[in-house]
């Protein structure tokens, strides 16, 4: 590859970028897996109600780390680009001597494409440009994460001796010093770019940085009642039903079913809790919610602390119109059927007349515009 003259492309540079990228991809995978399991829990999975900020931290890290890894991925692609172009001809493919060589080539191909897909679809998703993808992001992001991480592990397994040699070898002055950036200069540039990208976006969840994060796709200070929303009442098609004087919340349980009006709910014991609303897209905002503790409603219909609750919305035709509140959250005193936000009645876009708000859960599970609660055995 005579066209590629940079003396910076060395196994050491590529290995160093890989050493940085590995932990970042691991953070993205683990935090993304946690988010997936909270929404689609396996039988073995347990997610606590406390600390209330835990999901805010894991999902904030997921998006921030994914964005910060983009400069590193591009630098790593740059560092190996000539090798990527050195594709084997038909004869060389036929002469692949070991399965390791075949695995290496396939894993690199899969890793490169899957990583590009994963990061670009993530950027499009937080910018809500769903039409540019043409597929349901959540599901494909999850499955692609398995492919990215799996092919990364295969790649590390195959390349481990090269990486160890490259990192252990003493650094010698280059025979021909680079005319531009040095290796250290390039690594500093990549790290600085990641830092700038983080500072420019992380304010969507770290409120003190909201004013600095001029590229953040959300501002935790902006929205109805000072809190962002992800779905409006208009888009959900619930305006008429939610504002109807006939609205009732049906709560059914082992002993009875009750139908409660907004004034019935307001007449019950009110609890106030400071809980963040955290979106899977990485933004979050703290807020003060007031309403009826869910466990009070569970007891009202004959349930107990071992029961789970299905929260059902007025919204129709959405995957997020129904959510399950597992026992640890259902019995938590801070899990509310909220009627008020920051002391005022809920804005229609925040789920008026009543919404679920529970500690340490993704926003998509904080069902808005409630119509029904079903209390039943978790088994």
């Amino acid at each position: 590859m005579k066209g590629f003259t940079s003396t910076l492309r060395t196994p050491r540079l590529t290995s160093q970028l890989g050493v940085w990228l590995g932990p970042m991809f691991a953070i993205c995978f683990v935090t993304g897996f946690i988010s997936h399991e909270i929404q689609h829990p396996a039988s073995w999975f347990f997610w606590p109600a406390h600390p209330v900020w835990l999901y805010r931290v894991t999902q904030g890290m997921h998006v921030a780390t994914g964005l910060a890894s983009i400069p590193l991925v591009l630098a790593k692609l740059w560092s190996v680009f000539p090798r990527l172009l050195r594709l084997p001809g038909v004869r060389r493919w036929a002469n692949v001597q070991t399965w390791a060589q075949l695995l290496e080539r396939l894993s690199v191909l899969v890793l490169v494409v899957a990583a590009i897909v994963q990061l670009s679809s993530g950027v499009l998703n937080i910018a809500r440009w769903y039409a540019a993808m043409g597929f349901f992001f959540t599901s494909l992001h999850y499955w692609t994460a398995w492919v990215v991480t799996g092919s990364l592990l295969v790649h590390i397994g195959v390349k481990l001796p090269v990486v160890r040699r490259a990192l252990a070898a003493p650094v010698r002055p280059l025979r021909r010093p680079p005319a531009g950036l040095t290796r250290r200069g390039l690594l500093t540039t990549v790290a600085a770019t990641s830092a700038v990208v983080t500072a420019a976006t992380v304010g969507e969840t770290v409120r003190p940085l909201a004013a600095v994060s001029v590229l953040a796709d959300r501002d935790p200070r902006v929205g109805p009642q000072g809190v962002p929303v992800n779905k409006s009442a208009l888009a959900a098609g619930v305006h008429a039903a939610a504002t109807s004087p006939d609205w009732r919340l049906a709560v059914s349980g082992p002993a009875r079913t009750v139908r409660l009006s907004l004034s019935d709910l307001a007449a019950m014991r009110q609890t106030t809790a400071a809980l963040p609303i955290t979106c899977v897209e990485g933004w979050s905002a703290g807020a003060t919610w007031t309403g009826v503790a869910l466990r009070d409603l569970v007891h009202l219909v004959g349930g107990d602390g071992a029961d789970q609750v299905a929260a059902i919305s007025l919204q129709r035709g959405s995957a997020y119109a129904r959510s399950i509140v597992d026992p640890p959250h259902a019995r938590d005193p801070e899990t509310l059927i909220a009627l008020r936000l920051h002391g005022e009645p809920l804005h229609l876009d925040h789920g008026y007349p009543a919404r679920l708000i529970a500690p340490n859960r993704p926003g998509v599970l904080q069902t808005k515009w409630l119509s029904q609660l079903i209390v039943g055995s978790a088994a």
Partner: protein
Amino acid sequence: MTGKPEMGVMAWVRRLLVGVGLAMIAFAVFGGGGPRLSTSPYLVFAARVAVIVLAVLLPLTFALGWLIGRAVPALVRPVVQGACIATAVIVGIALPSVLGRGRQPDLPSALPRNYATGLWTVLAVVWAAAALLIVIRILRRRRAPVGTPLKEKNP
């Protein structure tokens, strides 16, 4: 796994990594993700972004690097290269927000900022830092005895 036979812990670590990696890919393909990963919208998107990054953006980067190598004086070249790299990455990440295709009239709290202004602001900070570094390099060069090359840290 390649070259001379390798024994000991490292060989087993490598086998473990490859085995777990293959198991994860197999889980994605056969554990429920296969039908979704093989749908045409997903494959079209994958092909499109791979071509954009590998066949358009990276070659453009090389062309720009080549141009900088010829047009920018050696003294300030590393700083200009670094600032150009940062600019390209930041523009790429900010572009979907700047274009604003995800905006909805009923949802003013989504994409609430002026992202074009935000992008210019971030780029102004990057290039201000670059200008500062260039001034420092020029001053260092002037203070150095004639004929002394600018000292770089070990490359």
